């Protein structure tokens, strides 16, 4: 009785076991579902995660291509920055240790800056002293390590800033762009200006990839040495490895020594200089002053220095070789070419110092006038009255049509960013530019004929034009690049004028400008080399009657009010080899500084055998 009572009570209680069974089954189902989800449904995702866990892809940075001068001298040096890094996943005490040890390197670093999940960059580009200190006492600097990052150094500093440009670290803003993010990271350098930017894709090379195996603590594991099991998987992952391909070297047409000489000559001016081979279009010297030391950009530049540079009145940030300026009297050469081409020179009346054309009274710079002149004499004298008449005969439509036949209205496409399109006037230009009422008055053609008004050319374009005259009818492409890697650069040379006789008078005029008594470019006359050229003076301040009367000394004017001077030239006279365009801002007359410097440069080139002697 007692026993069965006990059993009765037990079996009553046992009914409650069912509740426990229900929950046990419930939990079993939850576990199986969860296991199934993880391994079967999401298995692929987790497998990728697990392989990502063990491999660390380290990129191998290629060396950036060098930039060489005409003769193969390197204009850049590839150097290595020693960047100091800190391991991830460190504890507080370890960080304190690191903070202490960094004091020995004179680096102040706060452990609050530490980011757990990544390698921390402590200092970019250690100094030589810091690097040596670190290398010698490595055990004193726990958890720290150094990575070598290729960087650039520009040994010639300002001299080659134009046209070479510079590289700098990729900025955060650039990294936000998808195309840049694909190739670059925060430690990479990227061309920011000049040829470094323009040929970035050739220079940067191709990054390599190294697949490393790392355990959870970031320790490298060499699977081939230890028996780590799944060799097949490792081999498969290793196949992603690629070796780096260094960037292509770029050879310029620029001559290093000449460039250095020229820069030194012009460094105090705001000048641009282009010396170009007439036959091939190779630019052997390309200068825009003042320039900037490209090395200051490598690590990024402070706001103060940037402001100072950008507010400089000589505009060092502007590549003046490709900016547009009024060609002034040098454009008389083009007017002369148009006159010869249309055969209207014979209709020109003698210069009496003043002439009334199209209802406007125009003056010559010489009040008493030049009298009766031939075309070459007019060029020698730079006679305004002569060219006013010639321009009047040519007319605006012919100006435009002839300019088009010699591609004067097109860019030269020299390998420089920011080249301005030449401004060549045509009948509807004022309407297109929205100037005045838009109608072209014939009197405005007169201004064009002496290179004023709506005519603007860049020094490079001018060099192409001078080469066209000197070579008697060929338009060549001015270029700075000889070859990229092994690939030759494509250029063009187009014969646009078949009648070479047209040029005889113009060229002899240019010869006389320098070499004949009374020529405007007499200061460029040299005994060593026969220079042919043409001056140009571009008034910055409008000439009033006062100035014409008293013609005050240039030096009394403030810098900004002084005239801009051109001097275009080529040598030698009989078989032209090089054309030179020198444009100096606010230097006064083109017959003064530009002529003197032109002479110096040609003589230097003669001495150093740049010009072949016959």
């Amino acid at each position, binding site marked *: 009785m007692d026993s069965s009572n006990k059993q009765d009570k037990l079996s009553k209680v046992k009914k409650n076991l069912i509740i426990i069974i229900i929950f046990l089954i419930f939990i079993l189902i939850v576990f199986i579902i969860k296991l*199934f989800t993880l391994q079967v449904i999401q298995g692929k995702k987790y497998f990728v995660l697990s392989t990502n866990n063990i491999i660390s892809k380290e990129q191998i940075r290629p060396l950036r291509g060098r930039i060489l001068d005409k003769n193969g001298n390197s204009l850049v040096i590839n150097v290595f920055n020693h960047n100091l890094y800190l391991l991830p996943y460190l504890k507080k005490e370890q960080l304190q240790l690191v903070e202490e040890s960094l004091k020995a390197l004179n680096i102040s670093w706060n452990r609050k800056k530490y980011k757990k999940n990544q390698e921390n960059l402590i200092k970019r580009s250690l100094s030589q002293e810091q690097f040596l200190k670190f290398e010698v006492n490595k055990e004193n600097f726990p958890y720290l390590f150094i990575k070598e990052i290729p960087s650039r150094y520009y040994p010639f500093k300002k001299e080659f800033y134009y046209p070479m440009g510079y590289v700098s670290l990729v900025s955060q803003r650039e990294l936000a762009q998808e195309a840049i993010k694909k190739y670059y990271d925060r430690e990479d350098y990227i061309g920011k200006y000049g040829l470094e930017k323009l040929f970035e894709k050739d220079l940067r090379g191709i990054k390599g990839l190294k697949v490393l195996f790392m355990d959870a603590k970031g320790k490298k594991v060499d699977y081939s040495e230890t028996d780590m099991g799944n060799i097949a998987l490792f081999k498969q992952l290793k196949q992603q490895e690629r070796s780096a391909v260094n960037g292509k070297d770029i050879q310029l047409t620029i001559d290093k020594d000449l460039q250095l000489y020229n820069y030194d000559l012009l460094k105090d001016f705001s000048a641009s200089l282009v010396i170009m081979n007439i036959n091939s279009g190779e630019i052997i010297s390309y200068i825009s002053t003042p320039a900037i030391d490209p090395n200051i950009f490598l690590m990024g530049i402070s706001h103060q220095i940037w402001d100072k540079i950008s507010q400089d009145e000589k505009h060092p940030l502007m590549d003046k070789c490709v900016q547009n300026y009024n060609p002034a009297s040098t454009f008389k050469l083009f007017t002369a070419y148009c006159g010869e081409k249309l055969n209207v020179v014979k209709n020109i009346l003698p210069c009496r110092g003043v002439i009334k054309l199209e209802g406007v009274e125009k003056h010559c710079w010489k009040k008493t006038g030049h009298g009766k002149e031939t075309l070459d004499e007019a060029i020698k004298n730079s006679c305004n009255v002569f060219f006013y008449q010639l321009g009047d005969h040519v007319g605006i439509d012919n100006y435009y049509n002839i300019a088009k036949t010699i591609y004067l209205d097109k860019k030269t496409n020299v390998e420089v960013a920011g080249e301005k399109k030449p401004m060549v006037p045509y009948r509807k230009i004022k309407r297109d530019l929205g100037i005045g009422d838009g109608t072209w008055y014939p009197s405005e053609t007169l201004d064009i004929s002496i290179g004023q008004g709506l005519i603007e050319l860049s020094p490079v374009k001018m060099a192409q034009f001078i080469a066209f005259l000197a070579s008697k009818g060929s338009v060549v492409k001015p270029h700075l690049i000889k070859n990229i890697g092994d690939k030759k650069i494509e250029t063009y040379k187009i014969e646009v004028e078949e009648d070479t006789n047209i040029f005889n008078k113009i060229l002899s005029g240019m010869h006389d400008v320098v070499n004949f008594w009374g020529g405007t470019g007499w200061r460029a006359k040299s005994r060593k080399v026969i220079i042919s050229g043409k001056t140009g003076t571009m008034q910055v301040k409008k000439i009033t009657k006062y100035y014409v009367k008293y013609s005050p000394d240039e030096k009394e004017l403030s810098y900004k009010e002084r005239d801009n001077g051109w001097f275009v030239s080529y040598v030698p006279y009989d078989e032209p080899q090089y054309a030179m365009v020198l444009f100096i801002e606010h230097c006064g007359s083109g017959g003064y500084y530009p002529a003197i410097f032109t002479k110096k440069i040609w003589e230097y080139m003669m001495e150093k055998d740049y010009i072949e002697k016959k």
Partner: protein
Amino acid sequence: MKKNSIFLPLLTVTILSVIGLIFIFSAFYYKSTSFFANTFVIKELFFILLGILLFVFIANIDYRIFKNLSFILYISGIIILVLSMVIFRTYRGRWIKLGIISFQTSEFMKFGFLLYFAHFISRHFERSVTLNILEYSMVFFKTLMITFIPMILVLKQPDLGTSFVFAAIWIIFLFFFRATGFIVSLYVILFGIVIGVVFFISSEITEIRGLFGFLLNMNFIKYITLFFAILLFSMLLNIVIAFLFGQRINILFTILLIMLFFVGLFLAKGVISHLKQYQKNRIITFVNPSYDIRGSGWNVIQSKIAIGSGRVKGKGLFKGTQNKFNFLPERHTDFIFSLISEEWGFYGAFLVIFLEFLLLFYLLFVAFKANDAFGLFFALGSFTLFFMHIVANIGMNLGVMPVTGIPLPFISYGGSFYLISIFILGINVNIFKQSHEVRRLDLFIK
């Protein structure tokens, strides 16, 4: 029949032990590639061989003699715990070293506690319904003392996981001590709340909502769907239980229980959503003080990657990358399940879950067939102990439960827990053996 009663648990334990041994070797494979040169493997092999002998031995001892030993074992367990904290201050008092033998003090306590508590509660069991409120309160107070003295000592070590085991056994024993309809409902709601809190914590740590995120953020249509799903589940359950145990249960009762469980779950959600973030963090750090060592849930994430990357067939023995490259923490003890899942895939993991749950069902079956109150409560307590270990460990590995350092029975490395598990299971086998004839008759009488 009687002879074969040891067969099923012995087979299960042997298979689990061998799997455990293989993967303990795998966990240290890179250190020594020779099987017998590995000290962990040698030690574990010794314990397994010893354990299986002990298992057969204990299974043949009448379990009633442990009744008389229970108080001595309980008291000595407490003395050892106190001594280990006061005198042997080794490894925060978790371990005691006696010559070459060292053992975990809390494991011994588990055994003593289980025996004595089962003995104590079974003594009062017959009178449980007739007790008046004062007498009941006295019993309640005594159980509280029995549980909380070792629990607080273990908490001091600190070993939160093990102390939860004591608490769980206490709750289950009280439930079965006096299970009226009201108490059952209350328990089910409380269980829902506990599960809700546990899953909240784990989802906060792993930042992945998973199954319970789905349950906690439902709309009306999903509620209706869930209701019918529960209805269907209850009917199936009814059939299964009727088939297994020969007992019919009320479907409506089952539905009610499950609904009550969800009431508890949503109550927990309601409470949690009103907590401030710092209060939530306090709960999380209380349950798992070391969860933020390497960013939130790093261990759990790596464990999940290991399991998931094993996919269906696994990466192959000794070929798990999470294992070899040290991404799995504590992979010979707490995270051994992840290791098995990585190298043997879904098949291996399923086998382990199946065998472990087979043991749990076996223990419930023992409880169901137990001859007397002591046998019933000891089997129930054993079930609860293993249940806590298995669910907490596998749940932690799968990332559905917070990380507590609780080993997986018969698989994780560790001699103390292995031998204690063997003892407990052995006694259960004996309970089952002795119940046999009586139970049969009993069923037919009813």
